[in-house]
Protein backbone atom coordinates (compact mmCIF):
# COMPACT_ATOMS: atom_id res chain seq x y z
CA UNK A 1 0.00 0.00 0.00
CA UNK A 2 1.34 3.39 -0.93
CA UNK A 3 2.23 5.44 2.17
CA UNK A 4 -0.06 8.30 1.15
CA UNK A 5 -3.05 5.94 1.05
CA UNK A 6 -2.02 4.26 4.28
CA UNK A 7 -1.75 7.56 6.14
CA UNK A 8 -4.96 9.04 4.74
CA UNK A 9 -7.06 5.95 5.45
CA UNK A 10 -5.61 5.35 8.88
CA UNK A 11 -6.21 9.06 9.56
CA UNK A 12 -9.82 8.59 8.48
CA UNK A 13 -10.19 5.58 10.79
CA UNK A 14 -8.63 7.33 13.79
CA UNK A 15 -10.59 10.55 13.19
CA UNK A 16 -13.81 8.57 12.93
CA UNK A 17 -13.01 6.75 16.16
CA UNK A 18 -12.25 10.00 18.01
CA UNK A 19 -15.45 11.57 16.68
CA UNK A 20 -17.37 8.47 17.80
CA UNK A 21 -16.21 9.06 21.36
CA UNK A 22 -16.61 12.84 21.35
CA UNK A 23 -19.99 13.40 19.69
CA UNK A 24 -22.79 13.92 22.17
CA UNK A 25 -25.59 12.87 19.84
CA UNK A 26 -25.69 9.06 19.27
CA UNK A 27 -26.73 9.49 15.61
CA UNK A 28 -23.56 11.49 14.92
CA UNK A 29 -21.60 8.81 16.77
CA UNK A 30 -23.08 6.11 14.54
CA UNK A 31 -22.12 8.07 11.42
CA UNK A 32 -18.54 8.58 12.57
CA UNK A 33 -18.40 4.86 13.41
CA UNK A 34 -19.13 4.25 9.72
CA UNK A 35 -16.23 6.54 8.77
CA UNK A 36 -13.92 4.57 11.08
CA UNK A 37 -15.04 1.25 9.62
CA UNK A 38 -14.66 2.43 6.02
CA UNK A 39 -11.12 3.56 6.82
CA UNK A 40 -10.40 0.16 8.37
CA UNK A 41 -11.83 -1.62 5.33
CA UNK A 42 -9.56 0.42 3.08
CA UNK A 43 -6.59 -0.64 5.22
CA UNK A 44 -7.65 -4.29 4.83
CA UNK A 45 -7.82 -3.90 1.06
CA UNK A 46 -4.39 -2.29 1.10
CA UNK A 47 -3.15 -5.42 2.87
CA UNK A 48 -4.38 -7.57 -0.07
CA UNK A 49 -7.27 -8.88 2.06
CA UNK A 50 -10.01 -8.00 -0.40
CA UNK A 51 -12.56 -10.46 0.95
CA UNK A 52 -12.19 -9.24 4.52
CA UNK A 53 -12.38 -5.62 3.37
CA UNK A 54 -15.65 -6.20 1.53
CA UNK A 55 -17.06 -8.16 4.48
CA UNK A 56 -16.10 -5.27 6.75
CA UNK A 57 -18.00 -2.78 4.57
CA UNK A 58 -21.06 -5.03 4.17
CA UNK A 59 -21.39 -6.18 7.76
CA UNK A 60 -20.12 -3.26 9.82
CA UNK A 61 -20.77 -0.20 7.67
CA UNK A 62 -23.97 -1.71 6.31
CA UNK A 63 -25.82 -4.05 8.61
CA UNK A 64 -24.51 -3.10 12.05
CA UNK A 65 -24.73 0.65 11.39
CA UNK A 66 -28.34 0.34 10.20
CA UNK A 67 -29.16 -1.72 13.30
CA UNK A 68 -27.66 0.94 15.58
CA UNK A 69 -29.45 3.80 13.80
CA UNK A 70 -32.71 1.86 13.92
CA UNK A 71 -32.43 1.30 17.67
CA UNK A 72 -31.41 4.92 18.32
CA UNK A 73 -34.46 6.14 16.42
CA UNK A 74 -36.72 3.50 17.98
CA UNK A 75 -35.78 4.52 21.51
CA UNK A 76 -35.94 8.24 20.59
CA UNK A 77 -34.02 9.40 23.63
CA UNK A 78 -35.14 12.93 24.43
CA UNK A 79 -32.64 14.06 27.02
CA UNK A 80 -29.45 12.94 25.32
CA UNK A 81 -26.49 12.77 27.63
CA UNK A 82 -26.97 15.79 29.78
CA UNK A 83 -23.69 17.45 30.67
CA UNK A 84 -24.10 17.08 34.41
CA UNK A 85 -21.08 16.96 36.66
CA UNK A 86 -18.89 13.98 36.00
CA UNK A 87 -17.18 11.93 38.60
CA UNK A 88 -13.59 13.28 38.57
CA UNK A 89 -12.19 9.89 39.57
CA UNK A 90 -13.86 8.33 36.54
CA UNK A 91 -12.47 10.99 34.23
CA UNK A 92 -8.95 10.51 35.59
CA UNK A 93 -9.13 6.75 35.25
CA UNK A 94 -10.68 7.00 31.79
CA UNK A 95 -7.76 9.18 30.71
CA UNK A 96 -4.96 7.28 32.36
CA UNK A 97 -5.91 3.64 31.74
CA UNK A 98 -5.92 4.08 27.93
CA UNK A 99 -2.75 6.18 28.14
CA UNK A 100 -1.00 3.47 30.15
CA UNK A 101 -2.16 0.94 27.59
CA UNK A 102 -0.85 3.08 24.72
CA UNK A 103 2.45 3.58 26.56
CA UNK A 104 2.87 -0.18 26.95
CA UNK A 105 2.15 -0.61 23.25
CA UNK A 106 4.73 2.00 22.28
CA UNK A 107 7.25 0.29 24.56
CA UNK A 108 6.68 -3.10 22.90
CA UNK A 109 6.47 -2.04 19.26
CA UNK A 110 10.19 -1.16 18.74
CA UNK A 111 11.08 -4.71 19.82
CA UNK A 112 9.42 -6.36 16.86
CA UNK A 113 11.25 -6.63 13.61
CA UNK A 114 10.43 -3.61 11.47
CA UNK A 115 9.77 -5.25 8.16
CA UNK A 116 8.20 -3.88 5.04
CA UNK A 117 5.80 -6.25 3.32
CA UNK A 118 7.40 -8.42 0.69
CA UNK A 119 5.64 -7.96 -2.63
CA UNK A 120 3.56 -10.98 -3.51
CA UNK A 121 5.27 -13.03 -6.24
CA UNK A 122 2.07 -14.37 -7.73
CA UNK A 123 3.43 -16.41 -10.65
CA UNK A 124 5.98 -18.20 -8.48
CA UNK A 125 3.30 -18.77 -5.88
CA UNK A 126 1.16 -20.50 -8.51
CA UNK A 127 3.94 -22.99 -9.24
CA UNK A 128 4.68 -23.55 -5.55
CA UNK A 129 1.01 -23.91 -4.67
CA UNK A 130 0.41 -26.60 -7.31
CA UNK A 131 3.72 -28.38 -6.91
CA UNK A 132 2.12 -31.76 -6.20
CA UNK A 133 -0.84 -31.47 -8.56
CA UNK A 134 -1.25 -33.07 -11.98
CA UNK A 135 -0.99 -30.81 -14.95
CA UNK A 136 -4.59 -31.08 -16.28
CA UNK A 137 -5.99 -30.59 -12.81
CA UNK A 138 -3.72 -27.62 -12.31
CA UNK A 139 -4.77 -26.02 -15.56
CA UNK A 140 -8.44 -26.39 -14.63
CA UNK A 141 -7.96 -24.54 -11.37
CA UNK A 142 -9.26 -21.00 -11.12
CA UNK A 143 -6.60 -20.22 -8.56
CA UNK A 144 -3.80 -21.25 -10.91
CA UNK A 145 -5.23 -19.23 -13.78
CA UNK A 146 -5.70 -16.06 -11.70
CA UNK A 147 -2.26 -16.32 -10.16
CA UNK A 148 -0.68 -16.75 -13.58
CA UNK A 149 -2.60 -13.73 -14.85
CA UNK A 150 -1.13 -11.76 -11.96
CA UNK A 151 -4.23 -11.25 -9.82
CA UNK A 152 -4.72 -12.60 -6.32
CA UNK A 153 -7.75 -14.97 -6.13
CA UNK A 154 -8.44 -13.88 -2.58
CA UNK A 155 -11.93 -15.33 -2.18
CA UNK A 156 -10.91 -18.73 -3.58
CA UNK A 157 -7.93 -18.92 -1.24
CA UNK A 158 -10.00 -17.96 1.80
CA UNK A 159 -12.52 -20.62 0.82
CA UNK A 160 -9.77 -23.18 0.34
CA UNK A 161 -8.44 -22.43 3.81
CA UNK A 162 -11.88 -22.43 5.37
CA UNK A 163 -13.22 -25.65 3.87
CA UNK A 164 -9.92 -27.49 3.63
CA UNK A 165 -8.51 -29.25 0.61
CA UNK A 166 -7.23 -32.66 -0.30
CA UNK A 167 -3.61 -33.37 -0.91
CA UNK A 168 -3.98 -33.58 -4.69
CA UNK A 169 -4.74 -29.91 -5.00
CA UNK A 170 -1.85 -28.41 -3.09
CA UNK A 171 1.37 -29.38 -1.46
CA UNK A 172 -0.02 -29.66 2.09
CA UNK A 173 -3.50 -30.98 2.93
CA UNK A 174 -5.28 -28.88 5.52
CA UNK A 175 -8.27 -29.93 7.60
CA UNK A 176 -10.05 -26.60 7.20
CA UNK A 177 -12.49 -24.98 9.56
CA UNK A 178 -15.62 -27.02 8.93
CA UNK A 179 -16.38 -27.70 12.56
CA UNK A 180 -15.97 -24.04 13.70
CA UNK A 181 -18.17 -23.06 10.77
CA UNK A 182 -20.95 -25.29 12.06
CA UNK A 183 -20.49 -23.97 15.59
CA UNK A 184 -20.88 -20.44 14.17
CA UNK A 185 -24.09 -21.57 12.50
CA UNK A 186 -25.45 -22.80 15.84
CA UNK A 187 -24.36 -19.53 17.44
CA UNK A 188 -26.28 -17.49 14.86
CA UNK A 189 -29.36 -19.67 15.37
CA UNK A 190 -29.18 -19.24 19.15
CA UNK A 191 -28.72 -15.49 18.72
CA UNK A 192 -31.75 -15.26 16.44
CA UNK A 193 -33.94 -17.24 18.85
CA UNK A 194 -32.59 -15.22 21.76
CA UNK A 195 -33.36 -11.89 20.10
CA UNK A 196 -36.92 -12.98 19.34
CA UNK A 197 -37.39 -14.23 22.90
CA UNK A 198 -35.96 -11.00 24.33
CA UNK A 199 -38.14 -8.72 22.26
CA UNK A 200 -41.40 -10.56 22.94
CA UNK A 201 -43.81 -8.43 24.89
CA UNK A 202 -45.59 -10.07 27.78
CA UNK A 203 -49.21 -10.46 26.86
CA UNK A 204 -51.44 -8.39 29.09
CA UNK A 205 -54.60 -10.19 30.14
CA UNK A 206 -57.64 -8.62 28.56
CA UNK A 207 -60.73 -9.88 30.33
CA UNK A 208 -63.22 -8.35 27.87
CA UNK A 209 -61.65 -10.19 24.91
CA UNK A 210 -60.85 -13.79 25.87
CA UNK A 211 -60.05 -14.92 22.32
CA UNK A 212 -56.91 -12.87 21.81
Amino acid at each position, binding site marked *: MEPVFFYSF*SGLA*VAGAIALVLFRNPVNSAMSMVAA*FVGLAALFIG*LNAYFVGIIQILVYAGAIMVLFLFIIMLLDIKAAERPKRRNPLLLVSATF*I*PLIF*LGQLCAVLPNIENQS*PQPLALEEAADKHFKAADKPERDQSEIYRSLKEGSLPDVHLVGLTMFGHRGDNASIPTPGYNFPLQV*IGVLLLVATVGVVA*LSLKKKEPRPEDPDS
Partner: protein
Amino acid sequence: MASLQEYLFISGLLFTIGLAGVLVRRNIIVIFMCLELMLSAANLTLVAFSRFNLSSNGLPDYNGQVLVFFIVTVAAAEVAVGLAIIVALYRARQTVDVKDLTSMRG
Protein backbone atom coordinates in the same frame (compact mmCIF):
# COMPACT_ATOMS: atom_id res chain seq x y z
CA MET B 1 5.23 0.68 1.89
CA ALA B 2 3.85 0.95 5.39
CA SER B 3 5.59 -1.34 7.85
CA LEU B 4 4.15 -3.88 10.25
CA GLN B 5 4.82 -1.58 13.21
CA GLU B 6 2.67 1.16 11.71
CA TYR B 7 -0.26 -1.17 11.18
CA LEU B 8 0.04 -2.50 14.73
CA PHE B 9 0.25 1.03 16.09
CA ILE B 10 -2.90 2.11 14.24
CA SER B 11 -4.64 -1.00 15.51
CA GLY B 12 -3.57 -0.29 19.09
CA LEU B 13 -4.57 3.35 18.76
CA LEU B 14 -8.07 2.42 17.60
CA PHE B 15 -8.35 -0.11 20.43
CA THR B 16 -7.27 2.55 22.93
CA ILE B 17 -9.80 5.09 21.63
CA GLY B 18 -12.49 2.43 21.90
CA LEU B 19 -11.42 1.61 25.45
CA ALA B 20 -11.49 5.29 26.42
CA GLY B 21 -14.97 5.56 24.92
CA VAL B 22 -16.22 2.57 26.89
CA LEU B 23 -14.90 4.13 30.09
CA VAL B 24 -15.94 7.72 29.55
CA ARG B 25 -19.33 7.56 27.80
CA ARG B 26 -22.57 7.05 29.67
CA ASN B 27 -24.97 6.28 26.82
CA ILE B 28 -25.05 2.48 26.66
CA ILE B 29 -25.56 2.49 22.86
CA VAL B 30 -22.38 4.52 22.33
CA ILE B 31 -20.52 2.21 24.72
CA PHE B 32 -21.64 -0.66 22.52
CA MET B 33 -20.34 1.10 19.39
CA CYS B 34 -16.98 1.58 21.08
CA LEU B 35 -16.90 -2.18 21.83
CA GLU B 36 -17.42 -2.85 18.12
CA LEU B 37 -14.54 -0.52 17.34
CA MET B 38 -12.27 -2.48 19.69
CA LEU B 39 -13.21 -5.76 17.97
CA SER B 40 -12.45 -4.25 14.58
CA ALA B 41 -9.08 -2.94 15.77
CA ALA B 42 -8.16 -6.51 16.74
CA ASN B 43 -9.12 -7.59 13.22
CA LEU B 44 -6.61 -5.14 11.77
CA THR B 45 -3.85 -6.85 13.77
CA LEU B 46 -4.85 -10.26 12.44
CA VAL B 47 -4.96 -9.10 8.82
CA ALA B 48 -1.62 -7.31 9.15
CA PHE B 49 0.06 -10.44 10.53
CA SER B 50 -1.55 -12.51 7.79
CA ARG B 51 -0.03 -10.25 5.13
CA PHE B 52 3.40 -9.87 6.69
CA ASN B 53 4.00 -13.53 7.59
CA LEU B 54 3.70 -15.15 4.19
CA SER B 55 3.06 -18.88 4.15
CA SER B 56 5.36 -21.34 2.41
CA ASN B 57 3.93 -20.78 -1.08
CA GLY B 58 4.50 -17.02 -0.91
CA LEU B 59 0.85 -16.07 -0.46
CA PRO B 60 -0.62 -14.42 2.66
CA ASP B 61 -1.44 -16.72 5.57
CA TYR B 62 -5.17 -17.15 5.10
CA ASN B 63 -5.75 -18.74 8.49
CA GLY B 64 -5.69 -15.23 9.98
CA GLN B 65 -8.29 -14.00 7.54
CA VAL B 66 -10.56 -16.95 8.29
CA LEU B 67 -10.30 -15.99 11.95
CA VAL B 68 -11.32 -12.42 11.04
CA PHE B 69 -14.34 -13.85 9.24
CA PHE B 70 -15.37 -15.71 12.40
CA ILE B 71 -14.86 -12.59 14.54
CA VAL B 72 -17.06 -10.53 12.22
CA THR B 73 -19.78 -13.19 12.42
CA VAL B 74 -19.65 -13.30 16.21
CA ALA B 75 -19.68 -9.48 16.34
CA ALA B 76 -22.82 -9.36 14.20
CA ALA B 77 -24.59 -11.86 16.46
CA GLU B 78 -23.40 -9.95 19.52
CA VAL B 79 -24.77 -6.66 18.19
CA ALA B 80 -28.17 -8.21 17.52
CA VAL B 81 -28.44 -9.71 21.00
CA GLY B 82 -26.97 -6.65 22.73
CA LEU B 83 -29.33 -4.23 21.05
CA ALA B 84 -32.28 -6.47 21.93
CA ILE B 85 -31.13 -6.38 25.55
CA ILE B 86 -30.83 -2.58 25.39
CA VAL B 87 -34.38 -2.28 24.02
CA ALA B 88 -35.69 -4.57 26.78
CA LEU B 89 -33.76 -2.51 29.32
CA TYR B 90 -35.22 0.72 27.96
CA ARG B 91 -38.72 -0.72 28.18
CA ALA B 92 -38.18 -1.66 31.81
CA ARG B 93 -36.33 1.44 33.00
CA GLN B 94 -36.91 4.23 30.42
CA THR B 95 -33.21 5.08 30.37
CA VAL B 96 -30.03 4.24 28.45
CA ASP B 97 -27.74 6.12 30.85
CA VAL B 98 -25.44 3.74 32.72
CA LYS B 99 -25.39 6.14 35.68
CA ASP B 100 -29.05 5.33 36.28
CA LEU B 101 -28.54 1.57 36.06
CA THR B 102 -27.00 0.90 39.43
CA SER B 103 -29.21 -1.83 40.83
CA MET B 104 -26.39 -4.38 40.49
CA ARG B 105 -23.85 -2.21 42.29
CA GLY B 106 -22.36 -4.09 45.23
